[in-house]
């Protein structure tokens, strides 16, 4: 099992290197101009909640290597925290942020409404999977991360539940761990999606299984590794896989009734002190380098021509994404229902 995985990773890596080798083309004129402008600005302040510390640090380092002369300051905090901080900066007219990357679309809808983020169409956006290419008609924000919510389970579980529905079966009573939609954007998306699919009856049956509700869905991994619970619902796909490769006894199951796909976004604030550097970073997100780093860390890549780790692709996985219209109201309602029914 492990050797197979390693080989897949190596294959993915080799494919990526080959792809990048084939693609060593001089940067476009537009890119050059943007780099020159960014270099003049001299530094770049990243406020990122998407991706865990290690992955975002690798992306930052790759950016620094490709664009010398720009000092990069990375503030990696939880999505909600960096968003609140930008709101505070806007309120006090002291914006420091040049690139905001959070896991919550509603942040960007809110910021766009108050005119706080600026339009930028990345030069290389056509490499992004088509479904995520035109998220905003004005290009005020673009995709920053693809996050999948799935089932994860202890390696001791011989036949894990194959679908969200299967989590409601008798063997999983008292075995499930999950996050709280009031604290985790990913779990909130999961609740909205599951209510759309199966209604509140699912939540009622789910509550009867006595799931352990932590804060973040990262806590599912903790509970599984410690042996507190054996199956995680609404669990982080990429992070669970990274833990597996680190040697931990955990694996993921992509549910037959669809993984829930949640997008992280990226935007440059209107009053960013280094707007060109911010835009250059947005463009860099869709570079081969970034997608290779993502693949290495088990994240879905942002380019169609760089495969994910272990040979997965967006097409090889069944996924579902919540429609954007009315999302804010649905999240509020989902959290309220969850509190009423589950805990």
């Amino acid at each position, binding site marked *: 099992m492990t050797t197979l995985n390693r080989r897949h990773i190596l294959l993915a890596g080799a494919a990526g290197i080959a792809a990048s080798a084939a693609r060593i083309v001089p940067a476009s004129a537009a890119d050059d101009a943007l780099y020159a402008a960014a270099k003049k600005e001299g530094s770049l*302040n990243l406020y990122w909640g998407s991706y*865990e*510390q*290690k992955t975002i640090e690798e992306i930052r380092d790759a950016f620094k290597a490709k664009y010398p002369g720009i000092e990069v*300051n*990375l*503030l*990696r*905090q*939880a999505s*909600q*925290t960096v*968003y*609140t*901080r930008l*709101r*505070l*900066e806007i*309120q*006090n*007219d*002291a914006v*420091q942020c040049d690139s905001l990357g959070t896991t919550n679309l*509603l*942040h960007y809808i*809110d910021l766009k409404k108050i005119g706080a983020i600026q339009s930028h169409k990345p030069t290389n956006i056509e490499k992004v999977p088509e479904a995520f290419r035109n998220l905003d008609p004005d290009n005020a924000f673009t995709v920053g991360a693809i996050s999948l919510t799935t089932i994860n389970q202890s390696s001791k579980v011989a036949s894990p539940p194959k679908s969200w529905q299967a989590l409601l079966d008798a063997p999983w009573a008292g075995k499930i761990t999950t996050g*709280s939609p*009031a*604290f985790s954007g990913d779990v909130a998306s999961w609740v909205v999606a599951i209510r759309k699919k199966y209604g509140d009856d699912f939540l009622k049956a789910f509550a009867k299984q006595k799931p*352990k*509700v*932590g*804060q*973040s869905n*990262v806590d599912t*991994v*903790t*509970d*599984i*590794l*410690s*042996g*507190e*619970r054996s199956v995680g619902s609404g669990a*982080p796909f990429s*992070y669970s896989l990274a*833990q597996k490769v*680190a*040697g*931990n*006894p*955990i694996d993921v199951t992509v549910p037959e009734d669809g993984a829930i796909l949640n997008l992280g976004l990226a935007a440059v604030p209107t009053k960013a002190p280094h707007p060109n550097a911010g835009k250059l970073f947005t463009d860099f997100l869709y570079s081969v380098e970034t997608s290779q780093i993502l693949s290495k860390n088990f994240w879905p890549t942002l380019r169609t021509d760089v495969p994910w780790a272990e040979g997965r692709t967006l097409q090889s996985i069944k996924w579902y994404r919540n429609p954007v219209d009315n999302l*804010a109201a649905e999240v509020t309602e989902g959290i309220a229902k969850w*509190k009423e029914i*589950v*805990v």
Partner: protein
Amino acid sequence: MTLSFPTMPTRSASIGHLRHHMLRWIVLAVLLAALILLVVQPLGWILYNGLHDDDTGLWTLGNHRQIFASAALMKPVLNSLLLASAVAVLSTLLGVPLAWLVARTDLPGRGFIRVLTLAAFVTPSFIGALGWILLAAPNSGWLNVGWRVVTGAQAPLMNIYTMAGTIFVCTIYTVPYTFTMVSSALDEMAVELEDAATTLGSGVMRTMITVTIPLVMPAVLVSFILSFIQGMTLFGVPAFLLTPSGTLVVTTKLAEFYQLFPPALFLSAAYCLPLVIVTGGLFYVRHKILGRRQFVTVGGKGRAGRLIRLKKWRLPALAFALIVPVTAVLLPYVAIVLVSLSKAWGLGPVPSNLTFHWYRWAITENPETQRAIVNSLLYAGVAASFCVLLGVIVAYIVERRLLRGAGLLAVLVTIPIIIPGIVLSVGFFSAYTRPPLNFYGTGTIVIAAFVATFLPIAYSQAGSILKGISPDLERAARSVGASEGRAFTAITVPLMRGGLVAGWLLVFIPIMRELSVAIFLVSPKTNVMTTLIYNYKDGGNYEAVCATSTLLLAATLMIVLLARFITEGVARRRRNAASLGEVP
């Protein structure tokens, strides 16, 4: 009120008089300016924010009305009151006897217990909560697994995900406050009164209950209130331990406000009002209890280092004294250190899984950790020193009634600690990001926030020391011609010295372990250890969390022990001087 002296006819004396008044006004002016910048401004912003609507930005009383009218918003307040009251009562019941045992008796292993209690103090309570999750989660907790193996029982021995579990974890990490404050009061106290009681035939217990404890009452009450405030304002412990049961307290409810769109920052500010009212009530009660009574115990004479013999009570007393060291330090750190030494902690502590990688990574490979350790130590050191300086001056003015309205000053410097860190963070943000005070992104803003937040502790500690020092000594100095400033620096400060180092530690340590206040103020260059560790936790990197936590403990403990070593040296010299019959 000032002490008034008959005006002296000579010219030089009147110049001296003028000069000492000048000094006094300069000190007062600087102090007031500092307090306005550090406390009034941020608190003003919080008050202002609380009176505005989150959606429209207009003036409103709606936030306050909503809080008191809505059951869903009052429930967390009640839960917090329960948690805080229980933590305060239990911390006092554990901490006061513990301090007495360590300071006054021949309990075996006193030094060891002191150090471990300090180690408990140094541990951020959210890290303690992580340790206790590893120990006492109902299914996988090591203690529960062991219990099942030994007894064959099905049910777990304990479940940490309950209100009782939360009270327990909050308590064991709060006891060190009580312990440090009370034991410092005991250390500074002259033993003549206890000796008198013993001479008159009073037993050990009776002396303790009728003489010793009443004399350290100011310290006991202050630490009771501080424990209560801890129970109110801690975020990490209830967030980790109460989320599974869906129980909200004020701080976790605040975290929910911050998840809204846009984040309900103004409602959050208003949500602190019930906390301020309740804690204000506690301070009022303290004032009523202590107000007119005398607590002068330091008379300028040295104290003998005699210890009470526990005899047959030595072992039971030792068992009691070990409760906090074992539950707050030894057990959780076994779990934390084992995880920090794992390649992949899910594999458990087996030889093939052992590695020093995470320590090597944290110390030599990761510049973020290096910078954060330096920042934490630097900011905490600078902030604690400013805190003690301001705290002593304010306490001196208040205790010696040097100024009309000094009571107001006391209330002012006390408020910040009542307000949960996440709300304070927003207040400081508003206060220090506008010209001319544009400190955003610098270390100054973090230090200023730490000073203001922990000033109440420094002030309370200085106040309870001053209550024990007779003003007679200062009056004696003044009557032989010393100025107010000189009496303060030559008489009062040396008498306070031992207590001041304890006070410095009482501020330094909580700053090292503070998380929430810094959250919107740190920048990539000014990150501190706790915010870094919380980030690793957020990313699920448990091995890194545990390794950095262990390093945080080691670094803080080193400073703390160094400070203690220095104080003990000073105290010993002073005792020697006293025994030679000199005035210390």
